[in-house]
């Protein structure tokens, strides 16, 4: 079995399976934990209003604007760049639509009535380049900044690596740089599979848990009457 056949077949199937198991394990495991009973009198009757923290935490408070601007801007840049490259590149879309149809039994287009929009390869390549640049910048910042370096561990660096790897390999495959296309696309798929396997067990899981934790925290704060 050559590398591409493995990457497209068993490699992909195992990665997806581990991803699904891992994500649900972690999510269900956290959700079913017993919440510590809060015996105090709630300051606010409608604690659910604290859920707005899910949204409002998406940008920094005025007081922190200056000190966090660099991280915020670059963070948004690579998150958006990554998602655009992931969700609006035709070969990726064909994959997602195939999974969609396989799981739900209907075509994406039949359900939503529109075709999944996509950009041409050149545009995606641009977003990829921006993503890579931003990711390198935040890595340098993480290493240079004493505080960030202190609070960083293997998880941070490895999660960074599995994030940038599919983008870089995808761009190499698009540009046919350095190796035969089949090898490049196989390496791209394997890097994506590494991302999927690592995802639930490292800090990348924040993609799911960030909203859970913000919501929980918001409700606790609201109940305590803290200013959000």
């Amino acid at each position, binding site marked *: 079995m050559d590398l591409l056949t493995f990457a497209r077949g068993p490699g992909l*199937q195992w990665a997806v399976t581990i991803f699904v198991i891992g994500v649900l394990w*972690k999510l269900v*495991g956290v959700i079913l934990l*017993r919440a510590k009973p809060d015996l105090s009198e709630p300051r606010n009757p409608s604690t659910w209003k604290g859920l707005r923290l899910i949204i409002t935490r998406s940008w920094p408070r005025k007081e922190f604007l200056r000190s966090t601007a660099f991280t915020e801007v670059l963070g948004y840049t690579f998150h958006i760049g990554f998602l655009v490259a992931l969700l609006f590149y035709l070969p990726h879309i064909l994959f997602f639509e195939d999974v969609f149809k396989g799981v739900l039994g209907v075509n994406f287009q039949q359900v939503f009535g529109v075709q999944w929009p996509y950009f041409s390869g050149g545009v995606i390549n641009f977003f990829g380049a921006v993503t890579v640049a931003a990711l390198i910048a935040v890595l340098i910042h993480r290493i240079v900044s004493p505080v960030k370096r202190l609070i960083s561990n293997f998880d941070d660096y490895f999660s960074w690596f599995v994030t940038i790897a599919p983008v870089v390999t995808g761009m190499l495959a698009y540009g046919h740089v350095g190796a035969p*296309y089949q090898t490049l696309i196989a390496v791209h798929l394997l890097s994506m599979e590494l991302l999927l396997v690592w995802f639930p067990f490292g800090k990348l899981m924040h993609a799911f848990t960030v909203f859970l934790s913000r919501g929980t925290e918001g409700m606790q704060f609201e109940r305590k009457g803290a200013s959000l």
Partner: protein
Amino acid sequence: MPDSMKPRDAGDAHEATLGERLAARGVSRRAFLKFASALASMMALPPSMGLVMAQAMAQAKRPSVLWFPFQECTGCTESITRSHTPTIEGMIFDMISLDYHETLMAAAGHQSEAAREQAMKDNAGKYLLLVDGSVATGLDGAYSTIGGQTNLSWLTEAAKGAAAIIAVGTCASFGGIPKANPNPTGARAVSDVIKDKPIVNIPGCPPIPVVLTGVLAHFLTFGSLPELDALGRPKAFFGDTIHDRCYRRPFYDQGLFAKTFDDEGARNGWCLYELGCKGPVTYNACATVKWNAGTSFPIQSGHGCLGCSEPDFWDKGSFYKALPVGQWGSAATLGGAAAVGVAVGAAAAYAARRRQDKIAKGD
């Protein structure tokens, strides 16, 4: 020299050079120079090599060539003989002394086998062995025999005296369709059986005729085989993917795709990627050399590339499914994975609660 394949005018051709032989057949040196120039151009050699090739080949003795058919459909022979009359690569049959080819030779039965054995004896160590079809290795090769002998024994015996082996077509190169799952005959590529001889793979179902001509011309000119890629294919013809050299590539780059075989995009000749074209992962020269005297190739005719020149192309999923599609598993597998995930998560949470209770009780 066996008489079975001898052309009428080959009375003294045994010692004649290729140039003299062609002249005797009415092919002028001028025509031959043109042939060599065209070949050099197709093989991406420097244009001045055309003259060098013409001079070297004109002085060369025609090599003895044995063509063995194993588990094959004769499509490869069809491809190469159909190119004969109108095109320049038809000169291939003037370049070689084809001493054994079941389909083309007049002799049959024991006569033809005698011709084969004679040619192997006379040209020991010098003949070129061409093979089309895969080698059946199951039951010691008994699945495919000629004159009571297995293909396997033919190949191992003839390989000993061969200067080089050329695997013609995907079956000989990679096992091809006979090797497709479940491979009942234990079909193998020539290179799986023979390890100690130079082997050139010319895959394709069928292969492009001019590639064989190019390999032979290179052998006659330089006395060696052309540069090969990791899969043993001549780089001059298998250096780029179909996708790289496809005239529809600009549509791929612009994101213009046919969604069905009869929609607006298909009529406009847009990229067939979504319809399962395997061009991006297929190395061959169809997009540049084309077929039927340069008329067209599958993509130009509106059908995606099947990837027929790649190993195991028959087992790589549907021809009509786009490359990123159809390999992620099944809904059942994902459902099972989800169930396992939820169960493990619940168990973990339960274990955590038990532990909390224990601590609360003060155990």
